[in-house]
């Protein structure tokens, strides 16, 4: 058997990367290799630029040898763990992707041509062919067009898609693009942790869609609608089947046992920032940050009628003088900033305009005055208790920032015009519109969890914000909020400890 020279060089390169790792405390155990057979402990800490992320696994340690989440199932050498790394809060940061490229010279299965490169037609040995993953943390998601329901039933869309810009070649040519029956968009992997919250159902209705919640095809119970960016799969089984057949290139169907074992792991894992480099442990002096609170709380609670969102840090609003005296001045200032950030998140209102899912079709009004918790309303998590398909404009003109390395599509509504964009408009990712087939849903992206953010930059589904300040700045521009510099820093500090 001929072994490529590059493969033989990998261990040496990995050793060099270990030596150079530095601030993130990287080592061999930071990257979880598919099939390596490690034991997943009940508690696992990973340093990041802001402090330490902690993962808690309920029910005791897990032997990962032979476990379908950790074993490569398909021929490309990837496993679920490849793109859902514990150190990255069960997602994958662009920084980790870059480190992996440097460590393996691009040989890691992470960079599989099918979706770990900008397009399979590009020269795979070139770093530039993987720029979207390396710079923005994006994977290529190829979806059928026209769209189909989860059971393969076709949907007749009420809009037409034309490709305006195709910088990577995966939306044109004989194999790719709407003319070939598919569409490629580029998205961040969503974190597979704290799943009981993402699956929780708070109310029986989907107010943004104007129906009762759709039913799980397996259990016939209502589905939360909060799993995937475009809500194309509503339960974990469907999500696994989607991911295994695409990202893992697994040609067969997952067995019931494999689905059950992956589900078991995903429901047991909780992740959140545990310590801050600047503020210390986030569950001290009365604060209740960190993953233990997440593990022990009831999911699906609406902050406005129960425990307010991010009230975990309320005790830091008024730290008693005796306690304050035991902190370094910069630690005290940081904790006070986090507490202020939580209040800004809840209480600073602004006018939300022209955002489908908020201003239409639901009748809150356009505009409507509210704060971040209007949508980020679930206690402890900051995702939406109702299915969270909302158009913030992150992917759609004119609100999206220029991202010339992403494709651009012209959308033409064939029935009613889009309530905010009109008959014809432009998007880099139609989002939920690709699932529902409805023009009014184009640009909507499902809100996600706000936990473990420090471990998994960049942010938004298309990696628009390279850091937490970028998130705040985007909202400030989009809704003309007028945050003060102090408020911006307080929000960044808050998000850094979630």
């Amino acid at each position, binding site marked *: 058997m001929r072994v490529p020279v590059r493969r033989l060089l990998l261990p040496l390169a990995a050793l060099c990367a270990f030596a150079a790792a530095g601030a993130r405390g990287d080592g061999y155990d930071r990257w979880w290799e598919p099939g390596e057979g490690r034991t997943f402990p009940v508690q696992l800490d990973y340093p990041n630029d802001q402090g330490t992320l902690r993962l808690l696994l309920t029910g005791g340690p897990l032997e990962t040898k032979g476990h379908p989440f950790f074993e490569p199932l398909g021929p490309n050498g990837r496993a679920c763990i490849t793109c859902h790394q514990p150190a990255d809060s069960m997602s994958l940061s662009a920084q980790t992707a870059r480190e992996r490229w440097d460590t393996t010279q691009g040989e890691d299965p992470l960079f599989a041509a099918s979706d770990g490169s900008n397009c399979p037609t590009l020269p795979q040995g070139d770093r530039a062919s993987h720029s979207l993953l390396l710079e923005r943390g994006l994977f290529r998601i190829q979806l059928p067009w026209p769209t189909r329901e989860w059971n393969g039933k076709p949907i007749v869309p009420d809009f037409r898609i034309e490709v305006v810009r195709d910088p990577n070649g995966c939306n044109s040519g004989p194999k790719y693009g709407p003319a070939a029956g598919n569409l490629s968009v580029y998205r961040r992997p969503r974190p597979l942790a704290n799943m009981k919250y993402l699956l929780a159902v708070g109310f029986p209705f989907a107010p943004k869609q104007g129906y009762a919640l759709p039913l799980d095809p397996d259990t016939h119970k209502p589905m939360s609608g909060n799993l995937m960016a475009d809500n194309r799969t509503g339960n974990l089984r469907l999500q696994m089947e989607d991911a295994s057949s695409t990202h893992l290139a697994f040609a067969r169907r997952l067995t019931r046992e494999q689905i059950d074992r992956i589900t078991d792991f995903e429901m047991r894992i909780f992740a959140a920032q545990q310590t801050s480099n600047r503020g210390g442990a986030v569950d001290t002096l009365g604060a209740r940050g960190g993953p233990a609170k997440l593990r022990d709380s009831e999911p699906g609670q609406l902050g406005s009628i129960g425990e307010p969102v991010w009230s975990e840090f309320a005790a830091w609003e008024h730290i008693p003088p005796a306690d304050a005296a035991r902190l370094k001045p910069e630690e005290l200032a940081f904790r006070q900033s986090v507490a202020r950030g939580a209040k800004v998140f809840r209480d600073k209102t602004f006018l939300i305009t022209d955002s489908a899912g908020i201003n239409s079709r639901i*009748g809150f009004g*356009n505009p*409507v005055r509210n704060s971040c918790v209007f949508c980020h309303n679930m206690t402890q998590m900051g995702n939406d208790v109702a299915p969270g398909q909302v158009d913030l404009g992150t992917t759609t003109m004119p609100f999206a920032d220029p991202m010339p390395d992403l494709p651009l599509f012209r959308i033409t509504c064939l029935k009613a015009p889009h309530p905010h964009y009109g008959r014809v408009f432009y998007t880099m990712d139609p989002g939920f519109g690709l699932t529902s087939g409805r023009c009014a849903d184009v640009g909507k992206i499902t809100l996600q969890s706000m936990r473990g953010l420090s471990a998994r930059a960049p942010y938004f589904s298309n990696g628009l914000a390279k850091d937490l300040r970028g998130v705040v700045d985007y909202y400030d521009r989009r809704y003309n909020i007028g945050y003060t510099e102090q408020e911006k820093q307080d929000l960044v500090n808050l998000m850094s400890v979630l």
Partner: protein
Amino acid sequence: MKTIAALLMLAAPMAAQAQETGSLVRFVACPTYRDADSGRKSGCWLADDRATGRRWDVSLSPYKPDWNFAVLVEGRVTDAKPDACGAPVLDPVRTSRLLDQPCVRHMLPAEGYPGRRYKLQGRYIDPLSVPRAVPPGPYAERTFPVYFEFDNDFLIYQYDDYLLDKAVTWIRAAKPKKLVVTGFAATVPEMVSGQRIAERPEVARERAETIAETLRRLVEVPVEVKWQAGSQPTAEPDADRLPGQSQRRAEIRALF
């Protein structure tokens, strides 16, 4: 007899367009947003009736305007002081978005008006974690109406979800053999603010199918769908004494 009297009472004030307390006003206007700020959802919606030159506070509508489109305003005059938003208050009131009539968006500053501090009240549902009280029997054939905005089949948040939640709670307890959902549309043209307005006949079917699909997701009872154009006003209390609202409805009839 009581129903006829109620219907007469509903219809009578409309023609006169009197402005006394309780009278009905109905007009089409471009809405104005007043950026009052007493916290979340506290802004004001105002609308000017071109025929009378009067400005009304229409903020209490459960389905609020979009400043890019005209609204059909239907409401009853109150004697409330205009101190929240700077205009006399319509309550109850509905503001249906007319998406084929674009407007220039217009926002007024607060100008000292506080708006209304948001309170969770009226027609809202509890989370699923709160058990619903079982409605007492005996159970017999019964009809539950739900209501819509003009030419629209969208379930109105904190209105239709409340009505449906009540209906579903009763249906789960009563266990009828079948549900018949009938959608209605107000298709007879009327002149409002110099415009001839009428709902599309097909919205009756859209309403019926929306409610039927929602019921199929909530109860395990066979659902049959019907629809009917040219609907007439009713005196059902949840239409809030607004004839137009009562016409734009779907009815869920539980059969045993």
